[in-house]
């Protein structure tokens, strides 16, 4: 059975969905979308749709987990059963556990934990639709939710994936590009400090390609950073009691 493989990048350097190589998908970012939490955010990147909520700082529980000089951060990245093709069984997969860890470590890098000794801050990320780039989009939303909760941070942070597809480095790969491409590299940074808080690579890149990819990610992150700040302003400008939005 012969396959006529569809090309992912056309001869004029466009991708299947019409984007340029360095173009991200349509993004929507909102802050303060869930009333019960202390801070929350919503992000859409293409069909990827994610809520994030923050509770705390609050008393660490159980007590022996409390740290005398700083707050502990808990983070749960979770995907709804219906968020993927097919149906994900309820419960945390190994992938979700790993991503919860790397996202938490990224956020621990910017939250000023020393301000809240013996406390805990809980971050919950719920992917209601997964279409590539969920860990970086989830981190972007979580960082915004922390700011919405008024938790002091060195800076906001934002993330985006870069990929290698048919030999080209592309920004914000779609699910199809992620699956069929040669490499996927999620990157998150604190744009103001210019530092990396999350970096992973799946797939093969030469050192030259890596450098190109990292620079492309940086450009994307700066765009997301502006959108985060805009969402925060909008939230605080409309600081009337949340009503019948």
């Amino acid at each position, binding site marked *: 059975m012969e396959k006529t493989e569809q090309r992912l990048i056309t001869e004029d350097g466009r991708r299947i969905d019409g984007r340029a190589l360095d173009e991200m998908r349509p993004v929507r970012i909102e802050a303060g979308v869930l009333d019960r939490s202390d801070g929350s955010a919503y992000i859409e990147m293409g069909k990827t749709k994610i809520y994030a909520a923050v509770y705390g700082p609050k008393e660490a529980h159980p007590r022996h987990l409390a740290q005398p000089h700083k707050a502990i951060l*808990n983070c749960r990245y979770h995907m709804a*059963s*219906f968020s993927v093709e097919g149906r994900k069984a309820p419960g945390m997969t190994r992938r979700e556990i790993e991503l919860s860890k790397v996202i938490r470590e990224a956020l621990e890098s910017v939250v000023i934990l020393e301000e809240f000794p013996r406390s805990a801050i809980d971050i919950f990320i719920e992917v209601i639709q997964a279409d590539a780039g969920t860990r970086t989009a989830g981190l972007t939303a979580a960082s915004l939710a922390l700011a919405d909760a008024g938790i002091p941070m060195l800076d906001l942070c934002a993330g985006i994936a870069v990929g290698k597809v048919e030999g080209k480095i592309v920004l914000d790969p779609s699910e199809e590009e992620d699956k069929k491409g040669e490499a996927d590299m999620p990157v998150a940074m604190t744009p103001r400090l210019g530092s990396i808080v999350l970096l992973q690579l799946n797939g093969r890149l030469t050192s030259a390609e890596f450098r190109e990819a990292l620079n492309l990610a940086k450009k994307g992150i700066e765009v997301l950073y502006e959108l985060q700040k805009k969402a925060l302003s909008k939230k605080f400008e409309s600081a009337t009691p949340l009503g019948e939005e």
Partner: protein
Amino acid sequence: MYRIGAKPYPTKIMHDKLYELILRGERLDGRGPYQYRPLEIKTSIIEKTDGSAMVNLGGTKIIAGVKTALGQPYPDTPDQGNIVVNAELLPLASSFFEPGPPDEKAIELARVVDRCIRESKMLELDKLVYIPGRSVLVVYIDVYVLDYDGNYFDPSVLASVAALATSKIPLYEVKDGEVIMNPEIRSSLPIRRFPVSVTIGLLGDKILVDPTSLEESAIDTSIVLGWSDDDEMAAIQKNLQGLIQFGVMDEIINVSKEKAGELRTRLMEAVGRVGGTP
């Protein structure tokens, strides 16, 4: 790592305050005793599902998604499709919900939603059989509570029913004893009824519908009634500690019946089934 879900607020003072108000036909948020909070139903919000809906009822936000797959029927119902309902009280939604596998409250919610759908015979399950005893459609309904300000039952039933009513499932055909899926041709699920549930809080012999989280902490008890049709119940669940006076049951039935009618009207609008529109 997380607090165990005790009642969130001290209740005695709030209970007396609420009771005083309710005697005058009033509530804390300005509603009447029999009045629901603002309701919003949006469907088809998750493209990767066969059907989905988000329901906002006041400050409570629920999302439900429907996925279908081929599966084996249960041994005692070889000629019926299966329904599987799962519900999660996400920790995003309230400081009283904890991460982890569904606890007793989430399990109760899933089972009450399941009962409303199953016992009302909403779906014509006998039309979801491809090879009797061997191959049927399994309909998964996943309900997530995203934001919680009381009464997750009614919007969860609304979201689930709206998601089912707007689902488009692929065509399955039997060829040489094998079931073949054709994802290109899609059709609606066979739907017979539109069940809704009505949650009622009780303060002594006084009724208040659709209690908020604050009211839930102060009421004596509460009861959920699932109505499959204009005069037919399909499910009941008394669901907090506390006594219901025997004599109040009549009013509970009458009020919930009326409210169920109102909710069903809103539901039918949301799924585009008003006046026979498909």
